[in-house]
Structures are given as structure tokens and as C-alpha cells.
């Protein structure tokens, strides 16, 4: 590793700390507020530390919404969608990177172009398609159109292009089918990219709001946690119960956070091995 000159080093460190504090602030505030009593949360000047570890807001969440059910719905949506995206992106990315076929570049360009369409533009047509297929007001409808994703295909293509052709040919000579080549030889060679895509996709589809709201049409037992949070906000007829909302929000951010901590290993690993290889 290159050593930076001391003053620069300190400056960068300072900047990183400032950024970390700034981004951690709302999270910390959220977690702390979830333990407050409604009165504590309303005080001016605001109090940081709640007087006692008050878990009643967490209990209250489950009285207003089916928190367990919502978390489960979110998990199903995010996990199935992410898995789908990984599978389709790897396969399509492999084809774009390694197969020579007529119209490859044109097809790729069209696909990239779809990345620039604001999702709001496709919301209604997509909904009509899903409902025409009979999947409105169901998790299937929420998941199905998101199983393939242009950005994922693009990302996988870029990384797979860097995998040596000989490696792929060696696997073919060893008797691997094309699917086997993709999942047993190519995928392990680009683990950091797959981990990154998995994380992005999971967080995105865990947090996505508009699409499930449109598809589920008030079928609240199928609501993912972010939609249910909305119901927490409007509970109590406008007089917001801050600890209640914050408790719900804390429950909602926890799973993606855990996933990040778990996947982080792959990012750090890849950086270390890159450093060793020089």
C-alpha cells in the first residue's frame, strides 16, 4: 500500500470521519428515538438519550401493523427479486460478454437505453401488464417484472468481459455445460461484483415503495414493511407518534444492514487479494 504524506493523510481521515458522522446521525437519532416515550420525543430542546430503555414503542408497532408479516413480505420480495436479478444478470451478461451473435451490440444498446427511462414512466403500463396477467394485488405481481434488470446485466457484462476466454474454454473442455460455466467458473471469478449487485438489488427492492403500492392496491396483508411504515405515519390521525414510527423504521433498516455486514467480507476480501497480487 502506498503511504500518503502525513498532512494529507490526516485531512482525508478528518473528512471521512465528518462524512461518517453526518451519515450516521439520522440513523442514531432514529434508534435512540425509538426508545423514547412520546413525551420525551416532543421536548424542546430535544433530548438525545432516552431516560430509560423503553421498548413499548416496539410493542405498539405490532398493534398497528402486522410487523412480522410485513417484514416477511419484504424479505420475500427482496430475496426473490435479488436472486432473480443475479441469475438473469449473470446469464445475460455472459451472453453479451462472450457470445458473438448478430445484433448483439444493437440489443445491448437498447437495453442500456431502458436504464435511462424514469421508473415513473413505465409504472402504469407495467401495472396494466401485470394486472392483465392476473397478478395484481399479489406478491407475484410485485416481484415478476423486476426479475431482470438492465443495470445488473450491464454490470455483469462489464465484469465477465474481464474473465479470460481460456478459463471458459478450459471448463468447456472439462465437460461443463454453458450453465455450469456461468455458475461454477465465471461467477466465482467475479464474486465481489456479484456481492455488490446483490447488495444494491436487495436494498433497492427492500426499500422500494411506489411499485408495491401500485400493484398491491391496498391488500395490506401483502404489504412490505416500507408500505406498512406509511400506515404507522398516518396512524393517530396526523398526530405523529415519533417513537412508534422510529421503532418501525428501525425494524425496517435492520435486515439490509445485517446483509451489508455479511457481504462486506467479500468486498474487503477482494481488496486484500488484489493488494497481494500486486
Amino acid at each position, binding site marked *: 500500500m502506498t503511504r500518503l504524506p502525513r498532512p494529507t493523510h490526516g485531512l482525508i481521515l478528518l473528512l471521512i470521519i465528518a462524512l461518517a458522522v453526518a451519515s450516521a446521525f439520522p440513523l442514531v437519532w432514529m434508534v435512540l428515538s425509538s426508545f423514547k416515550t412520546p413525551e420525551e420525543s416532543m421536548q424542546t430542546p430535544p433530548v438525545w438519550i432516552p431516560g430509560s430503555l423503553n421498548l413499548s414503542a416496539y410493542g405498539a408497532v405490532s398493534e398497528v401493523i402486522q410487523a412480522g408479516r410485513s417484514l416477511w413480505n419484504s424479505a420475500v420480495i427482496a430475496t426473490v427479486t435479488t436472486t432473480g436479478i443475479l441469475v438473469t444478470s449473470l446469464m445475460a451478461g455472459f451472453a453479451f460478454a462472450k457470445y458473438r451473435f448478430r445484433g448483439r451490440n444493437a440489443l445491448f444498446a437498447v437495453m442500456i437505453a431502458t436504464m435511462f427511462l424514469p421508473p415513473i414512466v413505465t409504472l402504469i403500463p407495467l401495472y396494466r401488464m401485470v394486472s392483465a396477467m392476473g397478478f395484481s394485488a399479489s406478491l407475484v405481481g410485485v416481484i415478476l417484472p423486476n426479475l431482470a434488470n438492465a443495470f445488473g446485466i450491464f454490470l455483469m457484462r462489464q465484469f465477465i468481459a474481464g474473465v*479470460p476466454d*481460456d*478459463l471458459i*474454454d*478450459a*471448463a*468447456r*473442455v*472439462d*465437460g*461443463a455445460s454453458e450453465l*455450469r460455466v456461468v455458475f*461454477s*467458473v465465471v461467477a*466465482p*471469478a467475479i*464474486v465481489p461484483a456479484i456481492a455488490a449487485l446483490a447488495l444494491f438489488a436487495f436494498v433497492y427492492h427492500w426499500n422500494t415503495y411506489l411499485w408495491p403500492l401500485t400493484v398491491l392496491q391496498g391488500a395490506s396483508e401483502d404489504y412490505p414493511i416500507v408500505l406498512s411504515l406509511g400506515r404507522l405515519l398516518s396512524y393517530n390521525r396526523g398526530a405523529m407518534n415519533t417513537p412508534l414510527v422510529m421503532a418501525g423504521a428501525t425494524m425496517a433498516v435492520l435486515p439490509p444492514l445485517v446483509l451489508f455486514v455479511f457481504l462486506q467480507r467479500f468486498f474487503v476480501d477482494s481488496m486484500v*487479494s488484489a493488494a*497481494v*497480487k500486486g
Partner: protein
Amino acid sequence: MADVRLDKVSKSYGAAEVLKDIDLSIADGEFVVFVGPSGCGKSTLLRIIAGLEDLSGGDLLIGGRRVNDASPKERGIAMVFQSYALYPHRTVRGNMEFGLKLSRMSRAEIDARVMRAARMLQIEPLLERRPSQLSGGQRQRVAIGRAIVREPAVFLFDEPLSNLDAALRVDTRREIADLHRQLKTTMIYVTHDQVEAMTLADKIVVLHDGHVQQMGSPLDLYNAPANVFVAGFIGSPRMNLIAAEAGAERIETGVLGSLPLPEGGVPAGPLTLGIRPENLVLGAAGGAEAQVVLIEHLGDEILVELKLADGQQAVAKIAPGLSLTVGETVTVAPGDGPVHLFDAAGRRIAGPAAKS
């Protein structure tokens, strides 16, 4: 074990015809080396045999079976790549097992084969390491090991030694020769190193311009090159090719004096005379004059680059002892060894003409 036959095999990439009507027959157990300049299609031909590339025309038979449309697996081949192409995330053992596992072989059989190959290649202590923890030479052995465990009918090698340093290359070359002796499996080996070709091959196939220029034993190619291309390609330093003219009585070179016509005669007209560097004699009385351009001392011999009277270049390989300086003029003449004659189209004519 299998023989390999190519029947008018051709290959085009779009409009570019890389291989044209290649006919080739490789006997069971034979060690065949493809040589040729860069870009002549050696790798393409090998990859066609492997099934990694479709052929545009012709037939390919392995073990008497037509395999034009068979997958690599169905062909019973194994291939060693120039870049080794080891699976980076698998251990050495994992690399060697991969193909066997895919063919659903029993655990016991897999272990037995891996151990046998590992012992043969002396890589047993490395079995649990990853490719990134191996030296280039060790990686090469693992790549060969991965091919051996599959017990293929045909081994394919694409320049397997070109990423090794000179000393290791010599050792590994010898090991590959040993391997062939032990396994007696058909091997097809691509290289552009003609020393590898000469030392390993039962049969050399010289490729150029999409055609097989000549095939035969290393000595056949060396002693009787079929055309000027092979003459220039086989042998190091390369054979001197000098423009000459066949007369009624003798062959006139202008720059190296004249030579008698070979038995059976030669049609009158322009031709090319081929003389290997070791068959040029310097400093003899009665030779033609030439200027010394460059002297390379190799220890046991000296390479002398000459500029002949009309500006043509020639190289002579001589024993140490003669003291020469760059720029000096020496006499040069053909020695007692064979010379080669090629017609205006570059094809070999007659046998070697002897010196008068």
C-alpha cells in the same frame, strides 16, 4: 487412444479465410506438432479439433467417428492452454477434479486418478494450494495434471511452454516427451518454437497462409523442405535463400559462384538456391567476396552475417578459431553439405545438388 483425421477442413471468420482445405491424418499415439508463424491459424486448427470453434467446411474424425458437431466433452480430448487457465478459486486438487466430478465419476476413482497424476507430475505437496500460490512452472504442471486425469484419447497443447523461462522450458519440454512415452496417447502440440517442434515431434505440420506447407518427420523437413517457406522456417539460424539461374551446364548464383546441375537436370530459368548457414565456408580460396556485417559469438560456434556482392544477406555458422572483424571482406563458398533447389514458384526440385 484415437487417431485424428481432418478432411478438407476450412475455417473463415467472416470474409477472412484462415484455414483452407486442410487434410491431415494423425495416427494413434503419434506426437504431432503444428508450427508456423504467428497468425497462421495454429491455435484455430487446435481449437477446431477441441470443439471450441466450429469448422466452416470439411470433416473432422476422432477415433474414426465424425465429430464436427460434437461438444468438447464428447470428443474425448483434453487441452492445455498457454495461459494455463486454472480455475483461480479452486485448489490444485479442485482444478484436477472438476472435469471428473462433472462426469459423475465415483469419489474413489477421482481420488485415485488425482493421486496418480499428482505423483507423476510431482505436485502432491501442492494439492491443497490455490493457483495464485504457485509458480509459473507449477501452474503448468497442474494444467497438465488436469488434462491427464481425464485420461483423454487425444491431448491438445497450445504453446504450453511459452510463458516459462528458458531453463524451465527445457525441463518441461523433456517432461512432456516423457509423458508421451509413458502414456502413449495421441498428442497434438502447437508451438512457434522450432526447437520444441524438432525435439518433441514424431511428425511436424508446417502451417502458413491457411495451408499445410509440409508434414513429415523433423529430419525430413530439415533435410528436404518442400518449399522455400519450410526451408526458411525450419532450422536456426534460417537457411540462406539465394536467387540463382539454371543454365544448360551449371547453376549460376552470381554471388556464390556456380554449382553443377543435380542429377536429372533442372529446367532452365530462375530458381532459388537454399544453403544452410553451417554449409557456408568462409575464407576458402576461390570463393566469392562478401562483407562481414555482424559477428555473434555463441561460444561453441560463431554466426557471421554477410552482405553478398549484390547486396543479399546471408548467414554463415562457423567453428570458433577464424578471427574476423566487422567490415572486413572475406571469401564465401558453399561447403560439402547438401544444397537445396527451388523452382520459380518456390517448390522443391530434385534432390540436393552436390558441390562440384
